[in-house]
């Protein structure tokens, strides 16, 4: 006997939709990582997984455990808060590092230092 069988049909379908959407966005994000052509284009791709991918999966998890009264949902909320705070920081640092390296090498694809920067 599975605990998911205790879900009423409407909740089961709702959770299914959330899970599918979440996985789909994460999948497309990683596909973009593989497909796009240069680093500055690729850096946009994983944001899909960290925003809507995680959002829908957390929504599925929260719906599931709220309807079942199974367990507290604090961790899901904490994951959401931490991820929204940390993702911009990592991506910004990474892009700055990439820009610094490209400028050091004198790459022509990136804008160059203006005085005072």
């Amino acid at each position, binding site marked *: 006997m599975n605990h998911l069988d205790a879900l009423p049909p409407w909740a089961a379908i709702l959770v299914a939709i959330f899970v599918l959407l979440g996985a789909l966005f*994460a999948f497309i994000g990683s596909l973009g990582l*593989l497909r796009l052509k240069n680093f500055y284009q690729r850096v946009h791709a994983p944001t899909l997984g960290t925003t809507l991918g995680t959002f829908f999966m957390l929504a599925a998890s929260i719906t599931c455990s709220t309807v079942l009264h199974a367990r507290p949902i604090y*961790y899901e909320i904490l994951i959401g808060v931490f991820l929204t705070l940390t993702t911009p920081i990592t991506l910004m640092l990474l892009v700055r590092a990439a820009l610094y390296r490209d400028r050091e090498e004198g790459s022509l694809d990136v804008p160059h230092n203006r005085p005072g920067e």
Partner: protein
Amino acid sequence: MSHDLLEAVIILAQLLLLLAMSFSIIRMLRGPRAQDRVLALDALYVNAMILLLTIGIRSNSLLYVEAGLIIGLLGFAGTVALSKFLMRGQVIE
């Protein structure tokens, strides 16, 4: 009926996430530059966290969600340290 659907969807989602993780690993191996590899590692962390959430839904255990939270936090610290390293060649200045 709707429960069979849910089971099937969760398995499909896990397959999609495994594919997503393998895409990140391919990008990590292929590079071409260090920043591409770090970006791929970060995406791998996030995908692993989402995969753990689906396992948590399936097994109704808090443990997996907790593990997901920890992966998210460690992934953040790891990526920040690697980015610092790329920028200056050392982690702590």
